[in-house]
């Protein structure tokens, strides 16, 4: 007893001292809930490289890909990670749709939000030779024959919810067909298996020559790339949504550590080469504060939660 006590004390002191050691003193992990090679993964790696090259974070950062179950394998791991600032994650609005679908019982409120970096503007599009030349024709056709226009989606994810929201607001009924990830969705539109799907504006630009054409965009105002394409608001549909990239950390991560990381993220985003890379990925290189995100995600949650039961009653 006598000799154990000082040792214990010493050990405690050691622990305390370790706790006071300057953060960060070991590699920081960035959890990406998709496979390597995806767009979110690419973005995480842009930051990883910038952190290192510009020496914004004094330690190594490591991108850890944890794909599976619509991203919930990764988000769950992030949520359960130690809130010590050594684990952060990068994800998308799927964080709220997974909860709405009942797959997980947590959403962005169960994390510390570091902020958002870049959003991509999105729109709905059809194949070039589709009979719907304008969004008005599209809505007209949907009204004339409800439940006949096929929308390629990935059920339970934003690409499903956003067109559904649009249909609700426009008072039309669409038929949703499960097809899968972005490239498979694109193939199903180009192959005439489905009529319409949601894509980012970058995809519309990139695959213009393959025969993809936007009908409507969901931004606040018209985009320079497609000056002729109206926004949803213009045609009287109250829907303004962008696809954001959200930085998260486990709940309870000390605020000074969060600040260090979010400062690094902000600084990265200000550099010209990163801006350029963002634009080539079709993302607007803007930093969004946690407060802004909160408003956006709360709004999305409020609007999609009642949809789930409606969606399921559809048939």
């Amino acid at each position: 007893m006598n000799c154990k006590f000082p040792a214990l004390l010493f050990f405690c002191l050691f622990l305390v001292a370790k706790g006071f050691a300057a953060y960060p003193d070991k590699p920081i992990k960035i959890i990406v809930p998709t496979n390597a090679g995806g767009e979110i993964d690419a973005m995480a790696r842009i930051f990883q490289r910038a952190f290192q090259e510009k020496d914004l974070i004094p330690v190594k950062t490591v991108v850890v890909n944890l794909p599976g179950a619509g991203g919930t394998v990764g988000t769950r791991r992030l949520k359960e990670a130690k809130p010590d600032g050594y684990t952060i994650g990068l994800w998308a609005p799927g964080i709220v749709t997974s909860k709405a679908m009942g797959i997980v019982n947590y959403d962005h409120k169960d994390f510390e939000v570091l902020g958002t970096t870049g959003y991509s503007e999105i729109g709905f599009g059809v194949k070039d030779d589709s009979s719907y030349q304008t969004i008005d024709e599209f809505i007209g056709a949907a009204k004339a024959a409800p439940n006949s226009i096929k929308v390629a989606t990935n059920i339970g994810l934003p690409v499903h919810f956003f067109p559904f929201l649009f249909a609700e607001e426009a008072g039309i009924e669409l038929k949703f067909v499960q097809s899968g990830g972005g490239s498979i969705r694109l193939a199903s539109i180009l192959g005439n298996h489905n009529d319409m799907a949601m894509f980012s504006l970058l995809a519309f630009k990139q695959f213009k020559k393959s025969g993809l054409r936007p009908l409507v965009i969901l931004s606040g105002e018209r985009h320079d790339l497609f000056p002729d394409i109206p926004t949803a608001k213009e045609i009287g549909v109250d829907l303004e949504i962008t696809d954001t990239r959200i930085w998260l950390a486990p709940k309870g991560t000390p605020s000074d550590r969060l600040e260090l990381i979010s400062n690094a993220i902000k600084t990265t985003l200000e550099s010209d080469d990163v801006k350029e890379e963002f634009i080539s990925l079709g993302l607007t290189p803007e930093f969004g504060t946690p407060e802004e995100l909160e408003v956006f995600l709360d709004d999305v949650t409020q609007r999609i939660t009642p949809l789930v039961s409606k969606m399921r009653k559809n048939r």
Partner: protein
Amino acid sequence: MDTARSKFSQIDFSICAALFALGGLILWGAKDIPPPFFDPLGSAALPKVCAYLIIAFSLVIAARAFLRLKSETKVASSDDDFKPEPWLAVAVVLLASLYTLSMNLGWLGFRSGTVLFIFSLGAVLSRFDKTTMIVSGGLALLFGLGGQYIFTEFFYIDLPK
């Protein structure tokens, strides 16, 4: 010959029992699957079909095994020109599970766990042959330390610490 036959049927029967239980488990789990909403089949259709088929097949296989047990036909004897070592097979599963469990619960990291695992399984499989054990020890250090180094320092896999 007779024991070989009954032993084989024993495996057959226990697998049939396991299949039967599995079928039941799937049916029980399928009860909670919500009814179809996007397509007429729904998520419960395939599991239910599988469960019924498994149950039916397991009954038929059990019946056949039973008939064979009673009948005169001989089961071809296995090519036993060597002595099988069931305990070594058990040791592989046991040590592999222990190794995994120790990493799962954080008792051991990848490095120390791997060193211990390669060495001990090598020792058991060689039935504690001295030369093999020495080589095993070398391999254990090589793969434990080298593996940890390559995969964490070079490829950034977050191996259990």
